[in-house]
């Protein structure tokens, strides 16, 4: 029977470490632009969460994430009509600017549906890496057995070049419709592949860097 706490009753900087850490990410803090995530990326992450933690939020001993932070990055498309006859071609870009310094990339995978059933036939999909314009395209093959229909492609090598990490990743989502084209869903768009960054946050749970005296970069 707890009455909702008016936010005003909270001190400007909550003393509870978790709330303090979360407050830096709350809406209203700089950077909020887009509405809530939905659809298959949300379902994917909810399933991941339920396998990794119980209802109270305590991580399960049996979890095998291998890291304490996983970020799902959604792609932005370049617009235009992706359908050309039986082919679906969509150029996608994943923006990776502004990753917190304390989060170190361990692994990166792109998750997509290799096959979609349609009313009359199937949509078969693959991913191509778009490197520099003159370089030949690289067809990315799944690196893990599809789970719940999802396929994963390890793109870590394309994100970490030497000591630096890329600011973005460009892919092409290529699908072909197998079977008869009939009805309105002949042009159904497959769900957009999303990028998963497996990160090790060396400051997980501690006060965010901004709470510490600012150290000048050397």
């Amino acid at each position, binding site marked *: 029977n707890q009455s909702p706490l008016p936010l005003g009753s909270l001190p400007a900087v909550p003393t509870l470490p*978790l709330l303090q850490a979360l407050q830096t990410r709350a809406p209203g803090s700089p950077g909020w632009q887009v509405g809530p995530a939905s659809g298959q990326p949300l379902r994917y*992450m909810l399933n991941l969460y339920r396998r*990794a933690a119980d209802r*109270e939020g305590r*991580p399960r001993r049996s979890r095998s*994430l291998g890291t*304490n*932070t996983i970020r799902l990055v959604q792609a932005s498309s370049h617009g235009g009509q992706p359908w050309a006859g039986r082919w679906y071609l969509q150029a996608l870009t994943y923006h990776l600017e502004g990753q917190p310094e304390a989060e170190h990339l361990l692994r990166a995978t792109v998750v997509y549906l290799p096959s979609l059933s349609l009313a009359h036939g199937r949509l078969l999909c693959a991913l191509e890496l778009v490197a520099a314009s003159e370089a030949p395209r690289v067809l990315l093959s799944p690196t893990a057995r599809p789970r719940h229909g999802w396929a994963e492609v390890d793109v870590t090598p394309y994100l970490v070049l030497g000591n630096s990490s890329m600011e973005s990743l460009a892919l092409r989502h290529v699908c072909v419709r197998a079977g008869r084209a009939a009805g309105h869903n002949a042009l159904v768009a497959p769900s957009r592949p999303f990028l998963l960054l497996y990160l090790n946050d060396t400051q997980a*749970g501690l006060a965010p860097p901004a709470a510490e005296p600012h150290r000048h970069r050397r």
Partner: protein
Amino acid sequence: DTGTLAHDLPNYLREQGREKSDCSLRPFPVSFAQLGWDHWIIAPHRYNPRYCKGTCPHLLRHDYHAPNHAVVQSFVHQLVDASVPRPSCVPYRYSPISVLMIEPNGGILYKEYENMIAESCTCR
């Protein structure tokens, strides 16, 4: 061997078994809906850090995992100088909490925050 020594002192005999006011873990659930954060924190729906409260018994049983010093301090309080406080009831073990949240750019973040839930109490 405090066990046998304790039996020699009358008021120790009275402390047999767990009292209701003994040092123990208490719930303190806070729902993210209360904070108005439930539209961007997807899971869990509430955060229960729990806390330790209660008096530390004179006989510090093994399950308190109390350091030897706490046993000594308890004796000093009881036998030598009552102005020396009894050991305090504080958390002993913690567990992390996993949070699933929506990010400003529409991404979704799973993060584990260390030492955010008290799992057991100790006296020290």
